[in-house]
């Protein structure tokens, strides 16, 4: 290989309180290649990228022997000179396309801005260049789109605009920091294909930062794994995935849920626990001074399914398809639902007020975001005991405390966690507390609304293991809402695929994942990045 485009030598970053977030790492990126930096959250990936551009927060201390861009040491450059390098020679794409664009500027003027900063072109040429860029990132009808504001575009299109902005100054190196994490699988596949395509056209180097090993295996030429600020393993992709050397890498790879595991499920029939018939959630659209209802937004549109006792039904779909609304609707948490929900022979929809409150113990929910699902001002013990207090007011405080301790043991947390606040726990531990809270009232069904999507791979595997063992122990059923088909294969017995408020395909997990009938299901399955292991 020839000279590297970016060479980082002995880079360390520490924050005020002395803790090193990046600890003496060295790596190089060569022209035209895709280099992937992989690691779990908090391992220092993004900080590494920001320190190359010197965009670190004020309280960070950077220490490196050299950061050179095409032989040009960036450390010796002044802030003023760096401004000309950022964007011009190194482009950057962020994770969240929703907040990276200025909502009050048209996308055309946002791209123009970058071009005007780095090139001295006549107005006509700038306009021409913007159109070219929009065509390059495959936005349809760029002539009209140029005058659109960010909110008029979908998430995928916004990420395309971000890429166009990054490409505007024709950089030699493009840093993509988790470019597809907040996008749906099918759109992720499109964006990744686009990046590959552009890389081939322009020959620039791509530095991909990701936590998703499967994605990396399809995209990258070389991979580096980061753990707690250190690079523990670097290698060419093919070699790396077939023959991982470091124990941490092996742990990461083994924690990945695999699509093959779906074949292992037993198909024993059990009596149904929950029967849902023609379930609908409509939001009225009101217009005029009298707020007449002119139309409905059909979030969930006539859905029917059964869940068997002690089994797991996975509800799969992309964002906005109504799967979360369905989950919350089953728990009577949102108004405007109709249809029949029968659990254990009791029809939940016909109940209201006190009767409904008494039956709430039957269905519980575990939310996606472990940070907002617990009251930050309550002790963990009180959070778990809340349901017991509300539904079984007769239980004495001592007995209740003993029950809380038992629940904490069941979710593998120390008993003294009861006297601590939620913020003292990590994401995975919080999700365990949420599971304990749901279990406290002995539910027959737990709705798990993307419980692992905010967690790292290895933690995700632990939570899924916990859910499985609790199911065996207690015989609870799960309605597992997710967008991740690999997780579905790991945990589900049955699968229902949801698209625009309707269930379009339903069946056992092996059947749906291996012989999908509906075109949309096939599209979803194709889009899932699968780990390439050429052994």
């Amino acid at each position, binding site marked *: 290989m020839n000279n590297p485009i970016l060479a980082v030598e002995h880079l360390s970053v520490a924050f005020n309180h002395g803790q090193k977030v990046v600890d003496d790492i060295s790596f190089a990126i060569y022209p035209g290649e895709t280099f992937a930096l992989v690691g779990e959250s908090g391992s220092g990936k993004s900080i590494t990228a920001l320190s190359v551009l010197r965009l670190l927060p004020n309280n960070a201390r950077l220490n490196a022997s050299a950061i050179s861009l095409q032989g040009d040491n960036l450390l010796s450059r002044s802030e003023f000179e760096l401004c000309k390098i950022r964007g011009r020679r190194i482009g950057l794409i962020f994770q969240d396309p929703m907040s990276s664009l200025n909502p009050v500027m048209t996308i055309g003027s946002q791209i123009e801005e970058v071009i005007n900063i780095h090139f001295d072109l006549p107005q006509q040429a700038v306009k021409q260049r913007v159109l070219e860029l929009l065509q390059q990132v495959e936005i349809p009808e760029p002539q009209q789109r140029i005058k659109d504001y960010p909110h008029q575009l979908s998430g995928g299109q916004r990420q395309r605009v971000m890429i166009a902005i990054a490409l505007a100054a024709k950089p030699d190196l493009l840093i993509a920091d988790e470019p597809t994490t907040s996008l749906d699988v099918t759109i992720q596949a499109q964006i990744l294909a686009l990046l590959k395509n552009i890389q081939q056209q322009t020959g620039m180097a791509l530095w991909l930062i990701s936590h998703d090993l499967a994605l990396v295996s399809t995209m990258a030429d070389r991979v580096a794994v980061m753990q707690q600020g250190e690079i523990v393993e670097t290698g060419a992709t093919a070699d790396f995935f077939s023959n991982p050397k470091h124990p941490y890498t092996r742990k990461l790879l083994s924690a990945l849920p695999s699509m093959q595991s779906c074949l292992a499920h037993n198909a024993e029939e059990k009596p149904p626990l929950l029967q849902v018939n023609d379930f609908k959630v409509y939001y009225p659209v009101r217009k005029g001074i009298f707020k007449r209802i002119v139309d409905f937004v059909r979030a969930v549109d006539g859905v029917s399914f059964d869940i068997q006792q002690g089994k797991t039904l996975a509800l799969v779909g992309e964002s906005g398809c109504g799967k979360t609304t369905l989950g919350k609707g089953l728990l009577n948490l949102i108004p405007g639902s109709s249809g029949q929900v029968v659990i254990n022979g009791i029809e939940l929809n016909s109940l209201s007020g006190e009767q409904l409150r008494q039956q709430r113990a039957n269905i*519980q929910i575990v939310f996606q975001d472990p940070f907002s699902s617990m009251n930050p001002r309550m002790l963990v013990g009180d959070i778990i005991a809340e349901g017991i207090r509300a539904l079984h007011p007769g239980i004495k405080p001592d007995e209740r405390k003993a029950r809380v301790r038992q629940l904490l043991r069941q979710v593998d947390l120390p008993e003294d966690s009861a006297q601590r606040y939620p913020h003292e726990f990590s994401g995975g531990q919080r999700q365990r507390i949420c599971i304990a809270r749901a279990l406290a009232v002995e539910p027959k069904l737990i709705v798990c609304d993307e419980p692992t999507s905010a967690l790292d791979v290895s933690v995700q595997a632990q939570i899924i293991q916990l859910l499985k063992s609790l199911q065996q122990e207690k015989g609870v059923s799960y309605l597992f809402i997710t967008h991740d088909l690999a997780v579905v294969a790991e945990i589900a017995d049955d699968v229902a695929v949801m698209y625009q408020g309707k269930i379009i395909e339903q069946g056992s997990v092996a059947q749906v994942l291996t012989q999908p009938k509906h075109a949309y299901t096939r599209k979803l399955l194709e889009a899932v990045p699968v780990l390439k292991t050429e052994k």
Partner: protein
Amino acid sequence: MVILWTDALIFTLIAIMLGLALYMRGKEHIKRPMQQICRSKIGMVSLVVLVFFVLIGLLDSVHFKATGNKTNEIISLLDYWATPLREHGEKTYSAPFATTLYSKEMMTLADGATQWGYPRLEFGGSHLADPETQRMGDILQKAGYGFAQGAGLAAFFMALLWGTLAGQRKRLMLSSTTRTVWAVVFLIVSLSYTLIDLSSYYHVLGTDKVGEDVFYQAVKSIRTGLVIGTLTTLIMLPMAVIFGILAGFFRGWIDDVIQYIYTTLNSIPGVLLIAASILMVQVYMANHEAAFTSVVVRADMRLLFLCLILGVTSWTGLCRLLRAETLKLREMEYVQAAQALGVKQGMILLRHILPNVMHIVLISVVLDFSSLVLAEAVLSYINIGVDPTTYSWGNMINGARLEMAREPIVWWSLTAAFAFMFALVLAANLFADVVQDAFDPRRSGNE
């Protein structure tokens, strides 16, 4: 013993706070932030200053009928102790520690001749034969004596406390925070003794237009400031919190009604409402003279109504903030989780919504406290504030606006009011900061 309306309310407030403290004693999740407050130096020092102000205010809230030359006059415990200050009036302005009046006058000398000059004060420094030479030494001597007296007293009680403590508590007393607190207590006691001692010979902060001691006025104003700050908050808080949370949580018609009320109230200029209600009270008191015989009782009634109407006009801002915050909180997943667990709605409001808006309440209460003390000053300016006979920093500032235009300038009234207000508001702000940090589990460092 005479109990005025505001006295009764103040003592009720104290009783409520004591009750709350007793109730909270056994709660683990409240005990920990409390311990954190106790460890914070700034928090404890500002608490000591606040307690000192409150003690003066409480002393000033025990009223009784004076026995003596002026019968029927209602005075407080503070007035009783400060009798010399109260009765040592001069003719007109005199500067701090002065022995003569501030302006020249025609004086009749002992031999009957008249002279244009600065006449000696009736009380300030009257024990000195030759003020020119003796004054400085005398002030220092009196101050030193007072300081020693206060220091001795403080040291005596601290030693007494030290002696009664068990070994383990003694170690606690030696922590750096406790030492700072004792140092501040020691300083405050000694300084107040110095001031007490000096003020029986001099006018420490001068005298005002009618010759009244400014130091006495400033100290008396503490109670007015505290009453306006706390009672108004007491009236405003329940309305703002209850309406704000209900509107945000239940939405629908409840929200509509509450929003209607506060937009209507907000669109009426506050000054108009205040003026109207103060005039109403005055008319009422004029028609029922039998019930309001004493000047003090009338002034107190007016103060109470001022608090009431200030409370009624000032809850809308906080209410709006709380409504917006509740709208956000009710969509939080922990609220939905509580609903799924079958927790009753009242309980959700109490356990999940209220504690999570408390920081907003705390911040705006402290900010309001200072702005209320200031509002009182502005209202006095257009004559609809507290009664002109009530001592208040507002009245002092109001009087000072003419003095500022005098040549030479009379600066001490304004400075005194400013210094006292500043100390109170600063202590309240600092303490609220510490409390807020301690009660926010995400920011507190307790593990």
